[in-house]
């Protein structure tokens, strides 16, 4: 961390996961700080597990967070977070930025399953998640946004998710909500009053030849095949709990 300045906090974290050649995954790089502190937690089988434990609140207005994970060939990494991330208004003017870069090599696997991102009243955050996968890489990535803490209006939140497999972009989506977002974001075409919205991307090489069939769950969630070896679950829900239930249910249907 470069420290707290008038322009906000700058913090970065880096994870590198590597196969140790004996069937397990080691973490030669596990660097985090302040709001992006990292902890290695007990592994399950051949995968390494990391938990992001925010040791400060934020991101606040003006903050710049970057989080990068690289999973090398044959390695398996699971990343979760200890609690939801809450975007809050800050002393510093301007939006906060949170950039996540995920790099998964051919034959590697990443489960990126952080808790929700909550956009508190008055906050202004721009999140960009970019996953770059090799041809035979596997990925499960979950992203959930909650607009406002209980009973409060949403902050301003812009969230872009880009997934590339073998150099080809299979998914590129941006959602903008809250005060100052382009019109209609809470209207009948986009969110229609729902306060939780989420996506779950699953990349598996076998989806290239056998794409998942599209499936709708209830009125507000769908599992769809993307162009390429990937599938997407998208859902909107009244709250975080019901959103998680929808995403989990459709993920379970993938087997």
């Amino acid at each position, binding site marked *: 961390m470069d420290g707290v300045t008038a322009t906000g906090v700058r913090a970065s974290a880096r994870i590198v996961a590597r196969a140790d050649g004996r069937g397990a995954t080691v973490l030669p790089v596990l660097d985090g700080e302040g709001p992006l502190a990292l902890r290695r937690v007990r592994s399950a089988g051949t995968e390494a597990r990391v938990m992001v434990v925010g040791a400060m609140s934020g991101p606040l207005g003006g903050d710049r967070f970057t989080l990068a994970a690289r999973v090398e060939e044959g390695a398996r990494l699971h990343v979760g977070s200890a609690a939801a991330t809450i975007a809050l208004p800050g002393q510093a003017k301007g939006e906060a930025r949170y950039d996540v870069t995920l790099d998964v090599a051919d034959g590697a696997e990443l489960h990126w399953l952080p808790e929700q991102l909550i956009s508190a009243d008055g906050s202004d955050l721009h999140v960009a998640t970019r996953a770059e996968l090799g041809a035979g890489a596997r990925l499960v990535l979950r992203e959930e946004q909650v607009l406002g803490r209980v009973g409060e209006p949403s902050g301003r939140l812009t969230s872009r998710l880009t997934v590339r497999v073998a150099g080809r972009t299979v998914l590129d*989506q941006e959602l903008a909500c809250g005060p100052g977002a382009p*019109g209609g974001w809470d209207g009948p*075409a986009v969110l229609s009053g729902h306060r939780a919205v989420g996506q779950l991307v699953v990349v598996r090489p076998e989806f290239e030849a056998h794409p998942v069939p599209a499936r709708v769950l209830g009125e507000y969630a769908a599992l769809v*095949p993307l162009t390429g070896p990937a599938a997407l679950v998208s859902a909107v829900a009244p709250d975080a709990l019901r959103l998680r239930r929808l995403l989990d249910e459709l993920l379970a249907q993938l087997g």
Partner: protein
Amino acid sequence: MSRAALLVLADGRFPAGGHAHSGGAEAAVRAGRITDAATLAEFCRGRLHTAGLVAGALAAAAALGTDPGELDAAADARTPSPALRGVARRLGRQLLRAARTTWPSPELDALAAAFPKGAHQPVVLGLAARAAGLGPADAAHCALYESVSGPATATVRLLSLDPFDATGVLARLAPELDRVADAAVEAARRAAAEGVDALPAGSAPLLEVMAEAHAAWPVRLFAS
């Protein structure tokens, strides 16, 4: 540029099959989310800034001469719903057939050869605009206007909404549409310099989810 050519391309009677599509309005009416002119306006505004902006930028980029294959792949990545990808390609094929007869051009012939099953409609629209001697701003305006006029016209039939009210919704959106068209052209110019990843990627989760549900209805008035 020819202003008259723009009118021909943007005319709802241009034989490109768009009248059979509601742009998600049929599903939204059935779900009780579009009930009157005010909710139609909010629906159209949401579409304008998401799917509309993406379509406008794709059309503008195609009109500028950006590689249609790359634009088509960018459209796929920005359209997670396979039902909507299918609709975009069917509409693209129909538009291409009409455009090749109206404004014959080697670029349109090459597009037809490269995409026998149809390219995404906004990409075809941009190349058709180019063949008609129009520019990127014209292409963006056409795509954006289509993104809201389709739902407005469909809602007149679905809800028996007064056609004057529906037209009023479109007229009141016009200044906003002009601004989004400017943003679409700016993004298209950026994409020409930096690559297609610079194109906007606005998404409307309900439109995507509802399109999948709508495609499975046994009986429906509109194809999408």
